[in-house]
């Protein structure tokens, strides 16, 4: 049984479709990256899984299950028991998810006692242990500090430690290193990868950075215009991208060594279409060199292990 299984997820905000066909399966002990450009629906997908969509959003899916538990009929109370306990989240900007009025220690302890009970003392001990584990020096001292006293890198480490307070099985991280410097990003990603391997976590990592994807993911799903357009193992996707969008995206990257400096980068002409009511078929067809009439109909994911939502892969 997969840890997280999402089949044919659709989310709409009024007239606009934000997600119109996302299939994501996260296994235990693997890192599944969702990659795409802004507005492709990758963050909305993660929020939909957690039941954290804004009011007025309409969600439907063929299946959405965590460890075999059906998430679709769950009410807000049942979901909030799962969140922060068996499923934990890390967001891009830790300052918005940490409460500035409480110390690091009391926020971390609160996460533990709310879900698992136990004494505050025991929770604080665990918090200190985890802060040490995520590579924070003098963890005892940090417990008494407020979020604004920490640097961006430290705050993100605190967020990770806080996410681990209840031994989650699934960790959802939405652009966890985008706001950080490159050296800090490398440190945080290395830490996440280590923890994930040690604790056997399922990690769903949402990012726009193909470099991050290549280095940490076991499987990748590429999203475009609200759909997962390609899913494959990382090695397979980078060696043999099938969907024209994935190929276009890889060509846009300046890769040292592969491309002589100053040479022309590949580009994707055109713009993302507006996903208004009644938009069907491949969202990429207006920018695609291989577009054909068949692209205007709904296209399934073709393939068995390497899936691609493209008529060329049929």
């Amino acid at each position, binding site marked *: 049984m997969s840890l997280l299984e999402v089949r044919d997820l659709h989310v709409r905000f009024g007239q606009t479709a934000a997600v119109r066909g996302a299939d994501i399966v996260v296994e235990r002990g693997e890192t599944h990256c969702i990659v795409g*450009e*802004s507005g492709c629906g990758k963050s909305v997908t993660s929020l939909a899984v957690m039941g954290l969509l804004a009011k007025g959003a309409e969600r439907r899916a063929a299946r959405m299950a965590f460890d075999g538990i059906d998430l679709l009929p769950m009410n807000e109370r049942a979901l909030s028991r799962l969140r922060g306990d068996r499923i934990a989240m890390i967001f891009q900007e830790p300052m918005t998810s940490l409460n500035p009025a409480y110390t690091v220690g009391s926020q971390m302890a609160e996460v533990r006692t709310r879900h698992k009970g136990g004494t505050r003392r025991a929770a604080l001990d665990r918090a200190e242990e985890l802060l040490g584990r995520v*590579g*924070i*020096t003098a963890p005892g001292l940090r417990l008494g500090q407020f979020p604004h006293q920490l*640097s*961006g*890198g*430290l705050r993100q480490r605190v967020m990770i430690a806080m996410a681990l307070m209840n031994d989650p099985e699934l960790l959802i991280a939405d652009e966890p290193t985008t706001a950080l*410097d*490159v*050296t*800090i*990003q*490398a*440190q945080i*990603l*290395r830490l996440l*990868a280590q923890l994930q391997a040690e604790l056997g976590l399922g990690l769903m990592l949402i990012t*726009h*950075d*193909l*470099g*991050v*994807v*290549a*280095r*940490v*993911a076991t499987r990748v799903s590429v999203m475009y215009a609200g759909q997962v357009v390609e899913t494959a193992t*990382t*090695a397979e*996707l*980078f*060696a043999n991208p099938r969907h024209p969008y994935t190929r*276009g*995206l*890889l*060509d*846009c*990257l*300046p*890769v*040292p*060594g592969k*491309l002589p*400096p*100053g040479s*022309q*980068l*590949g*580009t*994707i002409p055109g*713009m993302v279409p507006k996903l208004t009511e009644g938009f069907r078929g491949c969202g990429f067809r207006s920018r695609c060199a291989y577009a054909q009439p068949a692209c205007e109909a709904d296209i399934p994911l073709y393939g068995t292990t390497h899936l691609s939502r493209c008529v060329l892969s049929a």
Partner: protein
Amino acid sequence: MTPAIEIRNLAKRFNVKQGFFGKPREVRAVDGVNLRLEEGATLGIVGESGCGKSTLAKLILGLLAPTEGDVLVAGQSLGALDRRARARLIQPVFQDPFSSLNPRRRVVDVVAMPLVAQGGLSGAEIRAQSLAMLERVGISAEMAGRYPAQLSGGQRQRVAIARALVLRPRILLCDEPTSALDVSVQAQILNLLAELRRDMGITTLFISHNLAVVEHVADAVAVMYLGRFVEYAPAKELFAAPRHPYTRALLASVLTPEPGLGVPDVGLGDAMPDPSNIPPGCRFHPRCPVAIARCSTEAPPLVGGAECHLLTP
């Protein structure tokens, strides 16, 4: 030959008050920067947040007055020039295309602004020149009548580039011009900048935290740490054989899209650089994985473009 731009011992110090009764602390944002760049070359300036690269950009643009030192463009000291003369020599492109265009002006008026400020041209001439420059960056005359909010991020950045180039300046200063853009749009903007640089022969300062982008565009690279260039070398040399330990760490932390390599160990501690408390000796020594005793007491010498004790024979 006079260099296109020369920076001599440039420094900027701020006094920041701490609390109501606290003693003001001195923040050394830029702390002795030197640089010479030939006509038509592109210099990449890389560094992490807080290293002073934004302050350096403001000093070069004349938005801030330096505490010490001087910036010379084509042999003229920027400090001695008035605002309009400076505008003809150097122009910026900023990071965020959503805050760099006045939302109340039409696109063509945004681009016309530097020409209007110079004076001496008729309205029709200004409009014609603005539209021509917009055309050149790929913005149609029809789009020129719209407001910035009706444009995509990439189009807005094209407008910002047109505004910067409409005066045909000697120097173009790009401060993280693609960091706020998606990868596919970034590629378009980088291609456009390369083409314009080639055609117009503009000398470019390209500030970025993205080393892959800098490697792609730059002829020379300066690595900035706590207000100083700790290494300054031709791009090929620097990327092939980085000399300063900080440069090595930066290069190691670049995540190229090559699967199977894993995340590298950068080897830097979690001590954060603080420009209000610059360490004695080598400013990098608290984070340096190969520091020796001398590093914490003596300022490092400049050897072959890099400031590091380990490079002395």
